[in-house]
């Protein structure tokens, strides 16, 4: 059974369509990055999966209907909606007590172990902690939950680079164990390049790219084209072309790398470059047929 399965998932706020009938499947043990420009529908998709908003179409998360079974679903799912949703009046020790009291899969010992690695004192109130420490605290609480699916919506927004790096390091080293599934949205795409197993681009409420990272490496190539090869390269119909320091950089999809090596330096595009390439195409085609 896939962890998340959506068919024709649609959500409109008034006349504005946030999700335009998307189909997706996320298998267990994957780390999926959901990437898209502001207002693309990422958060709407996550909110639907978490039972925070009603939707049209079919959606199953771990066999539950999220909208009607949110409280049952939350025994197997946890989410960090974005930074700073922990109640500001709460004392760290109260957070630990409360989680122990309401969540059957919370390990207080584990949470205290994670907190011991930080500078957070158990007597502190959330309002006394820095933004980075609040995220550390929330992550400690979340990682102490033995749940099957973890959903992160912009978990590192507004954090400085040290905390951001640390966040994904502890997530991978202390939490992820291939039986759990993680779905993450972020604008800091470079940071999660090595974290993800799957990548999905979403634009205007539609999925414009859905690939595993392995597939991405074989399917997409970025070539720094030598000046005398530009016309030959263009003949291969690149997805996108940009100029950097007078050199053309082109992104190709589905073209054999052997064919490209003659044109210039070939490498796997970064998520950011691929994003620009795919989004450029999607914009060019209007709402696209992805």
């Amino acid at each position, binding site marked *: 059974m896939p962890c998340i399965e959506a068919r024709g998932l649609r959500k409109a706020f008034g006349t504005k369509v946030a999700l335009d009938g998307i189909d997706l499947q996320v298998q267990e043990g994957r780390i999926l990055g959901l990437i898209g420009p502001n207002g693309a529908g990422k958060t709407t998709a996550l909110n639907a999966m978490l039972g925070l908003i009603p939707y049209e179409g079919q959606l199953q998360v771990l066999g539950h209907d999220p909208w009607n079974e949110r409280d049952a679903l939350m025994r197997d799912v946890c989410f960090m909606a974005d930074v700073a949703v922990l*109640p500001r009046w709460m004392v760290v020790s109260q957070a630990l007590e409360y989680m122990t009291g309401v*969540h059957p899969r919370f390990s207080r010992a584990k949470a205290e172990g994670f907190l011991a690695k930080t500078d957070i004192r158990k007597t502190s109130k959330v309002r006394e902690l820095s933004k980075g420490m609040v995220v550390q605290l929330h992550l400690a609480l979340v990682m102490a939950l033995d749940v099957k699916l973890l959903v992160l919506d912009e978990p590192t927004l507004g954090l400085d680079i040290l905390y951001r790096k640390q966040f994904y390091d502890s997530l991978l080293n202390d939490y992820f164990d291939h039986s759990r599934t993680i779905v993450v949205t972020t604008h800091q795409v470079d940071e999660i390049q090595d974290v993800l197993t799957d990548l999905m681009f979403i634009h205007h409420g539609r999925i414009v790219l859905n690939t595993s990272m392995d597939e991405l490496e074989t399917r997409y190539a970025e070539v720094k084209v030598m000046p005398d090869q530009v016309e030959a390269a263009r003949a291969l119909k690149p997805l996108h072309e940009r100029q950097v320091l007078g050199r053309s950089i082109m992104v190709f999809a589905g073209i054999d790398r052997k064919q490209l090596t003659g044109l210039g330096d070939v490498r796997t595009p970064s998520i950011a470059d691929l994003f620009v390439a795919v989004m450029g195409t999607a914009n060019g085609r209007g709402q696209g047929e992805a």
Partner: protein
Amino acid sequence: MNSQTNVMSSAGEQAAANTSGPPVRPFFWSLRREFWEYRSLYIAPLAAAGIFLLGFIVTIGHQVTKMRGMAGMDAIHQRNTMASPYDMASGLLMAVGMLVGAYYALDALYGERRDRSILFWKSLPVSDLTTVLAKASIPIFLLQLFCWAVAVVLQFLMLLIQSAVVAASGESVSILWAQLSPIQMWIMLLNHLITIHGLWYAPFYAWMLLISSWARRAPFLWAVLPVVALGALEKLVFNTSYFFQFLGNRFGGSPAVVFVKDWPANPMTLLMPGHFLLNPGLWSGLIFTALCIVGAARLRRYRAPL
């Protein structure tokens, strides 16, 4: 790598501990966290009681003089004179309970959206109905019980202090205790707080909770202004004021059995739950309360942070 294996094994232990661990109690912990968040729920009654006790101590000489001057009075007058500071103490805690309850009910489902913490609460396996029921039971039951307990302690301390002063001035303490009959006084107060301030006023608190879960801003205004507007409209269109009368009766003129004008020979006869329970106003109010609570729980499901 080492730390990773540690985490793995502790995850395994934890899974084993889960099956034998204590059952989770979402309702209890939902109540518990309200008292963490809204500390005024207990600080305000305690502070009011403390200030009142201080005032009582300062004016204790006056109380004793009043007691001396009532030798020629009849029993009911004697009782009323002696009881007046004690009745004031109960009245103060009732008033504080109502104010704190109203403040709490208006903020309970609004504050969590304003500070976005609703997203944290909703990430945990606690249903909206459990949350709203916990929040409703605070002004309707727990706050009233707490105010009663504070009143009992306050009145007991007042009695001890007054007895000490009376005894020190060489007079009999027994008349004070006999006239006030504290146990009876406390049973009556408990009855009054639970029936009137809890059950009879429950629709007011439930209405405020409903507005608190609905309003995008200014829940106090949304709770009050439409009610006032409705009454004013009735006055304007029909030149009647049934709606205001209805609200006034609900708020002030609770069932006659519970609000007494004359003090009967045996005040315990006032405890007639039968009369109270047969009052249709009680039951229509409780039905309205239940509807508001279900409505608030449904609204909370749809509500996003502000």
